């Protein structure tokens, strides 16, 4: 009988305890996999989100993160012009974020407005209709949520209202615009009512009609990915009034904000491993103790100690492999559920995920579990080799 067959037979002989042990290992493995996905998934998902349209650098007003405050930067057109003249930069565009209102019958609906430069935009993807052109002062793009709120579709006319004046109970500025397309705003939270126009139109709506050249954010796409850190450094020197962030910088800030979840994932992953080790060690130790007579007999007929040790190891490995296989399936299912909870954070982009199933996560969790499971068999294996043959056989015989 091969070592594997022997191990399987032994495990089948104790069905209930094997079932419980495999269940315990499976739950621990599921938790471990979830925590491995959580610890690495946050930054990877965020980096992918930032690079969704290929823009590697963001410029914001000094001391702010993109869209973290209402601060704006002045003379945006001049800065964008300088950026576009830089030979290392493929494209650069400005974005202005502001709050505004849409008229729906006789009431006003609060909306989020984006002013964009269609020739260099990195914050939306077209779903229906057509994109704005750089000089389209009459066009507007809607999110599906706004289309629903205003009851408007492609080709319809909507009325947007900028700053409101409570003193005179009137809109500071109002525009009637034609819906060119329905878009998905990449950084919007689920159901966010957002609209987009070309930058000058949104600047006029935000400032109450006064001439204005402000932006909340500048997006920069560098020709060569490897040159991003160097270009970011150069831009920091060139624009000391602005904050310059590469994707790596933003991921670092984001990680700081979500440090609690990363630390929690490490703690829970460690606890999962401890539970797995305890389960396997306890089970194998008791199994070895129960089978001391059998082991002593095997040793008496010439079976080598190494064979006995291998036998105990194989038993532990079989438990770990079966538990881990079930744990991966369970882990993927629980990850979806946990992700649905965490992605309901207010203001979090809808495209963001905390638990990202990746091959490397599966491999890491599997390897860690296999190594831990194998090591857990060390103590019982040592016990098995130390059994005194004669004394054990005599005790078994009486």
């Amino acid at each position, binding site marked *: 009988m091969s070592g594997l067959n022997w191990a399987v037979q032994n495990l089948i002989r104790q069905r209930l*305890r094997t079932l*419980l042990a495999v269940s*315990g290992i499976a739950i621990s493995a599921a938790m471990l996999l979830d925590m491995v996905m959580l610890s690495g998934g946050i930054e990877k998902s965020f980096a992918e989100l930032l690079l969704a349209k290929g823009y590697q650098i963001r410029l914001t007003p*000094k001391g702010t993160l993109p869209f973290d405050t209402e601060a704006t930067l002045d003379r945006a057109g001049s800065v964008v012009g300088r950026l576009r003249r830089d030979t290392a930069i493929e494209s650069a565009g400005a974005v202005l974020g502001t709050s505004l209102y849409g008229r729906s019958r006789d009431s006003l609906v609060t909306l989020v407005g984006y002013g964009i430069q269609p020739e260099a935009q990195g914050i939306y993807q077209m779903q229906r209709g057509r994109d704005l052109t750089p000089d389209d002062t009459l066009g507007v793009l809607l999110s599906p949520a706004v289309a629903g709120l205003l009851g408007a579709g492609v080709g319809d006319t909507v009325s947007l209202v900028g700053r*409101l004046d409570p003193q005179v109970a009137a809109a500071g500025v109002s525009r009637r615009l034609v819906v060119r397309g329905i878009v998905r705003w990449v950084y919007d939270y689920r159901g966010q009512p957002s609209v987009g126009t070309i930058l000058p139109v949104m600047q006029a709506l935000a400032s109450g009609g006064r001439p204005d050249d402000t932006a909340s954010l500048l997006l920069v796409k560098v020709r060569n990915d490897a040159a991003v850190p160097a270009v970011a450094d150069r831009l920091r020197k060139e624009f000391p009034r602005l904050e310059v962030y590469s994707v790596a910088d933003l991921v670092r800030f984001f990680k700081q904000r979500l440090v609690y979840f990363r630390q929690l994932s490490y703690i*829970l992953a460690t606890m999962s491993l401890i539970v797995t080790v305890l389960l396997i060690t*306890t089970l194998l130790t*008791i199994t070895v103790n129960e089978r001391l007579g059998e082991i002593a007999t095997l040793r008496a007929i010439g079976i080598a100690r190494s064979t006995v040790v291998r036998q105990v190891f194989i038993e532990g490995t079989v438990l770990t492999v079966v538990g881990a296989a079930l744990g991966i399936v369970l882990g993927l299912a629980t990850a979806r559920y946990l992700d649905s909870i965490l992605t309901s954070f*207010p203001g979090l982009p809808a495209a963001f995920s905390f638990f990202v199933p990746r091959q490397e996560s599966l491999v890491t969790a599997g390897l860690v579990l296999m190594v831990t499971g194998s090591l857990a068999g060390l103590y019982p294996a040592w016990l098995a080799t130390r059994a005194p043959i004669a004394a054990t056989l005599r005790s078994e015989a009486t």
Partner: protein
Amino acid sequence: MGIHAWRPRVFAAVLLIIGAGPARAQVAEVAVERRLAEELGLSIGDTFRIGPAVDSITKLGLVTAIYEPRPDPAEIAKRERHVRLHLPDLAALLGAPDRVDRYGVGLRPGVSPDTAAAALNRSAFGYRAYSSRAIASESSQTLLVVSRFHRAIAVITIVASAVFLLCIMLLKVEERRMDAAVMRFVGVRRRTIFGALLLEAALIAAFGSVAGSGLAYLAGAATNAYYRRFFDTGLTFSLITPTIVLFSVGLSLALGIVAGAVAAWRLVHTRPLVLWGRG
């Protein structure tokens, strides 16, 4: 409507502060958050320059107070630093006179905040009125999500612990095979053996529960100490309430006793010779 106070509350802005400078007559009084004061080495009576942008840090501020902000779970991860100015000073600094972000409204006793907010929303234009409860509910959404996540993790942990406990109790009782066989050989009744094994399982579960509660208390204290230091806050991160202890101990005892009973029942219904290993 029973409004008896209506005053501008806040005008929030990003401000930049650098260095210390000589005192002048036109100095804005500033209350500085304790952590910011520590980071910048500021103390009461110091002056510093303050401005809304890097190239306009021109106004002078005088530190007249250093305050400890109320711990806010929604803010700790942001690590933002705050200063407080008199509203006219801040408006002048930003070049935005007569502008505020929000008003605080105090109502006369007996007036419903929700009714007042609805009335304001009907009668006015250009702003939105909320009751304090509505704002608190909205701003606590983040914490509710974290709480739901913790609950989900707790359920998984409870299931894992339950399986672990069942497994251990089963093994523990099965260890007593030989003892049970001997007792059966000498005529001890099954019921007595079952009771003894059940009592043993209950004692182990009780001891484990007490030890687990102690361990949880220590882990909670360590968690609070670590995160309070990490985030420099007085917030409580881990709270072990009597309800939680009772639930955990109750669940452990129930699972331990059930597992012990199942294992003991199997043991006493196995033939003594089989238990002895000769069956």
